[in-house]
């Protein structure tokens, strides 16, 4: 165990090279003073400067972050309460039914989520824009939070709750003094995952956003179709750094549990 011969090592190296080539390719050309992604002329920061001069792009960036933070916060709150209630449901059939419902949005293709939410918002009369995007992001993040929190809740011995009640705790005390402190790592993991899902989302936002409101993904999509500018490369460089920070933050919080990635991804 623990020893790899040459061939597997080579194979893994190959996989890692393929996985990281596009990312480093983007980063490399973000420093190109020439205007295109071919023929590196000389090193420059001008594209990074351009990112910060482009107020429209900055606005979009802020939009994206605001939506991500707000949706992660709200979905974490709703998801945690939902997960706690699910674990207290004694009827197995009902619990499983709720869980299947929970998982529907996780396995649903983005296109379906986007299209059906579009119908919903139009029908209810929610104006397409910030509100509709935020609500959609909250909606698709809730089941992810539930999935991240549930294992922690199941790990918790039921006698802990009995013990708290035995010592005089009310239902509220049990939640705030025992359950929430215990599942804190799960809550953080859920929050971070919700955050990255929101930052990463393109398809759902693409469906439910109106003319006036755009997130980064949607913007990159339209820019990439219209023509390539290295400003996007510079922006990707910045996002890459931020993402790395987020990932390591998430990893550091979740380090205590054995496998930090056991949740389902889309």
């Amino acid at each position, binding site marked *: 165990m623990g020893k790899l011969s040459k061939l597997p090592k080579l194979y893994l190296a190959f996989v890692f090279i393929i996985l990281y080539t596009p990312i480093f390719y983007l980063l490399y050309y973000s420093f190109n003073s020439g205007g295109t992604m071919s023929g590196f002329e000389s090193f420059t920061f001008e594209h990074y400067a351009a990112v910060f001069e482009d107020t429209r792009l900055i606005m979009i960036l802020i939009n994206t972050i605001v939506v991500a933070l707000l949706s992660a916060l709200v979905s974490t709150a709703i998801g945690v309460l939902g997960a706690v209630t699910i674990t207290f449901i004694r009827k197995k059939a009902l619990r499983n039914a709720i869980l299947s419902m929970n998982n529907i949005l996780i396995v649903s293709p983005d296109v379906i989520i986007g299209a059906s939410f579009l119908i919903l918002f139009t029908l209810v009369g929610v104006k397409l824009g910030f509100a509709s995007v935020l609500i959609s992001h909250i909606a698709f993040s809730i089941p992810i939070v539930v999935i991240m929190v549930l294992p922690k809740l199941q790990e918790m*011995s039921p*006698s*802990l709750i*009995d*013990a*708290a*009640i*035995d*010592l*005089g*705790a*009310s239902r509220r*005390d049990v939640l705030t*003094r*025992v359950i929430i*402190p*215990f599942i*804190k790592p799960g809550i953080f993991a859920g929050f971070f995952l919700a955050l990255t899902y929101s930052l990463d989302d393109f398809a759902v936002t693409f469906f439910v956003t109106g003319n006036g409101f755009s997130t980064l993904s949607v913007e990159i999509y339209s820019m990439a179709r219209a023509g390539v500018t290295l400003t996007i490369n510079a922006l990707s460089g910045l996002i890459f750094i931020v993402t790395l920070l987020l990932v390591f933050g998430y990893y550091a919080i979740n380090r205590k549990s054995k496998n930090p990635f056991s949740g389902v991804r889309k």
Partner: protein
Amino acid sequence: MSVESIIRFDNVTKKYDEDTIVLNNVSFELERGKFYTLLGPSGCGKTTILRLIAGFIEPTEGTILFNGKKINDVPANERKVNTVFQDYALFPHLNVFENIAFGLRIKKIKTDEMKKRVKEALAFVNLEGYENREISEMSGGQRQRVAIARAIVNDPEVILLDEPLSALDLKLRSEMQYELRDLQKRLGKTFIFVTHDQEEALAMSDEIFVLNNGEIQQSGTPLDIYDEPLNRFVADFIGESNIVPGIMIEDFVVEFTGKKFECVDAGLNPNENVDIVIRPEDLVLTTVEKGKLTVTVDTQLFRGVHYELSTYDKDGNEWLVHSTKKAEVGSSVGLDFVPENIHVMRLNETEEEFDARLESYGGSDNER
């Protein structure tokens, strides 16, 4: 007796579904300040009784009284009862001090008083100075003590202990048995202890309730239960026993393995079928000529304090013998015993009938 009674079960039944009866029409009364043990195999309903007293579950039928008041509907967090859980259920996110102070914080006890009481509780379980330790840094035995301290700090009238020693190794376990018994005497509180370990039950209790299939089989002092098991289940569950069928010829004469023996039991019908119990340690190895029974030694194990011999009589009944003397495997030996060591069990006799019979033939209770 009812003056001092602290907990009373009146015809309590607990069902989970229509069909799964975990406790069947159980009635008993517990006195203040005694050490009680609920003993039985897993699934016998002993933990259910504990959870009913703690208030985690409600009885399906019947009444539970606490200090003479019905407490069926009183939620667990309002009962003056605290539990020591099997897995200790210590809060992993809180340190030792905060774990013990949990109940006091909820009652909003002042900080000074809280500190004093936690300190006292820690002293009671010999854990002075451990306030700031994390639970993960404590050994199994220490966690056990923290769990006990967390229960007693709230000054409950009754302390429930759900198999609290089952996770400890043998040596620690017998140490904790002494300590628990000692603690109970110092506190003077009612302890209700659940276990499936009969030795533990015999060693610690003022009174034992032997349970099986959701019913109380027999209750009494450890000596009572050991010496006069009421039925085959109790005899088998409490210590090792040789149980053979017999016939009660008349008062003080019983027949088994085809021979008549003098015994100390009476009040049965002539020629009634009974079960005979003789404990392995009451059988004395002797020569064939001197022995009351003749058996052949089948196997012999060295158990440290004694040899454990498995022997068979000519009818094929197995007789387990605990002997300090060795025997030769395959040889025929004699077994001797005195009349007091023959325990006669009536088939399907209830506890009340048993007690009534003892009364009727006079004062045998005092002998024991």
